[in-house]
């Protein structure tokens, strides 16, 4: 079996190269000047040029865009977390009429494509003056990520042993207390996974962002990338510098918190 090893390594190496190629190109190009790229598109930069990064960091609204994205992420994830925890707790640990139907409907909504919601919501938001508002977009994002959150949390809450609850109730704790003091602390891994998946979803979204946040000042990072690459489509090194800056947050988080990312991605495959 050892005979296979070089071949296996070769395959993995080729795969790795393919996986890294765009990123390598992105970084290498961002360090070239416009003129250098014109003559040498493929090779490494002769002397790294940082002018492009300077332009992007100081003269472009990338950080403003990231801030907008961050606002949406925090708002939507927080809102969804609250709604999901409450609902999942009730679905998992209480009995009430319509419980199973609600859970089925909520879970089924995971398969609904967001694009289907945009026409009526766009019209409604225009009537309510919610276009280009953070609140408006946050509500939509929260709505889109909640079915998955409810599903994940319900499944998890169901695995908690009944004794835990009985003991707490004997001590006189009400439901809310149980949720807050016992269930949530135990659910930290699941919650963290949830936060990672949902944050990634909202951060990476393009469709909702370009439709519901049309104001230049509220533009998110993804929408901004679309605008940026159109504006400077003749300055490729500058564009690549912008892309490097844009991918930095996620890449850094990934390298630092791989475990949670991977776990989150595995759990969040539907998204």
């Amino acid at each position, binding site marked *: 079996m050892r005979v296979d090893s070089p071949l296996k390594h070769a395959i993995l190496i080729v795969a790795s190269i393919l996986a890294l190629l765009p990123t390598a190109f992105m970084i290498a190009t961002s360090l070239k000047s416009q003129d250098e790229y014109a003559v040498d598109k493929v090779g490494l930069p002769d002397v790294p040029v940082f002018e492009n990064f300077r*332009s992007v960091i100081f*003269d*472009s609204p990338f950080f403003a865009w990231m801030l907008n994205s961050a606002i949406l992420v925090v708002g939507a994830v927080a809102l969804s977390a609250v709604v999901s925890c409450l609902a999942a707790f009730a679905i998992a640990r209480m009995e009430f009429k319509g419980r199973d139907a609600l859970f089925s409907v909520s879970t089924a909504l995971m398969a609904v494509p967001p694009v289907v919601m945009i026409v009526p919501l766009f019209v409604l938001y*225009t*009537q309510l003056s919610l276009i280009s508002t953070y609140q408006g977009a946050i509500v939509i994002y929260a709505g889109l990520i909640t079915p998955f959150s409810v599903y994940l949390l319900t499944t998890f809450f169901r695995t908690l042993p009944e004794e835990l609850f009985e003991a707490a109730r004997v001590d006189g704790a009400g439901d809310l207390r149980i949720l807050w003091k016992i269930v949530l602390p135990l659910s930290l891994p699941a919650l963290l996974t949830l936060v990672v998946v949902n944050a990634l979803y909202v951060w990476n979204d393009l469709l909702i962002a370009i439709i519901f946040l049309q*104001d230049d000042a509220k533009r998110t990072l993804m*929408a901004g990338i679309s605008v940026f690459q159109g*504006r*400077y489509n*003749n300055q490729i090194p500058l564009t690549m510098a912008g892309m490097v800056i844009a991918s930095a947050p996620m890449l850094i988080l990934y390298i630092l918190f791989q475990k949670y990312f991977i776990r989150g991605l595995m759990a969040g495959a539907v998204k």
Partner: protein
Amino acid sequence: MTTGRWNGTLSRRRFLQTAAAGTGGLALGGLMPSLAAQAADTTLEMWWWGEQELPGLQAFLDESVAAYKDATVNTMLQDTAVVISQFQTAAAAGKAPDIQYLWNGIYHMESVWLGYLRGLNGLVDAEVIKASNPTLLSQYGGDVYRVGWYPIPMLWYYNKELFDQAGLNADEPPKTWEAFLAACEALKSKGISPVGGGIQDGYWGEWYLGHALPQNLDSVGEALDLFIGERDFRDPKYYALWTKLEELKKAGFLNDDMSSLELYPGIDLIVAGKLAMGESVGTRLPADSKATDGQIGVMVMPVYGTGKLAGKPIMDTQGLGIAAGSKNPEAAAAFLEFLHSPERLQAFWEKTGWIPSNTNFDTSVVTDPAVKAMWEDWALSPNIPYVSNLTPGQFYEQAMVPAAQQVIEGQITGEEAGDLAARVVQEWRDFNPDLVDKYKSWAKDLA
């Protein structure tokens, strides 16, 4: 909508200017509350576009807003994709801004028909309207719906140095189609890419129709006839524009990366000396002429057609309008008049390096001979409107752009392009029966 794109040759100076303007705008925005205390109670909402194609416009607007004491104007720069739809939806919901930036032709005429825009006769000073030249395409039913803001001469670039290399006369660009083909041959034989640009993002196709379709039209109204059914794109006269494009493709005169390159990088090829001729806009000329030390020449698209409009320079204007639902139309009108005051016109020139749309503006400040010459030949001579502004959105997306893209790829012939256009026109009529009648009355206005 003419350019629809950001100024490609963004020199560092411009970039910084723009960025400074942007941050300046933010800073000014912060100052707003204190200034508002001095301004009257009237607040105006203004949605606009244009920084994308004319850097410095934001700076001009911010300065104007700060200097304006009769009202507080809140401005919002829109994204290209939603300028029209955002306004129309807001207007339908009764939430339109007081002042709206409007591309010419159908881009705002639709809003007129839907009752979203206010007629400006009697509201804005007649002298100002006239001087600002909103163009023929802003008129409907005896009223005018825009005040012009800045002009967009639609023209073709050619690189004088490349002409020299090919033995062509750099002061006499080709005027007829035969001369044009001969020039292309000469250039190709010297290994120079003769003509083209970039059509990946589609706009080149829009410009092309604007240049080429009028060549077989006698009046602007005839273009509208193509949409209301009086004339048909299947008529060789009208799909000739794509046949000519096919001719260029077959002869190998188009640059080989035209399909994967975008509009502005395509124009940059001409400026960089890699392409000899191609479409462009007048707003780019000051920067491009300076960058190449006057090596960029401008010309009207070479003529193959026999219509009365053939061979005439094309002038378009971007403008500003007032919403029908505005609660302060007089205040809005006053602000528009303010933007056309002599002091503001001068500021416009200083901030953007481009000429504002006002016949009273003293163009002696323009020092670049190339720009001067262009202005004389385009703005100050008989010119025609930019007919691409007449095309419905559906036609734009599903015929005008795809047809040109596919012809350039070599996928379809000119005749097939005509079929595609005719089919989409029919679909447009089916999908939008309410607009067809409007087009008919508009055609009468423009005949």
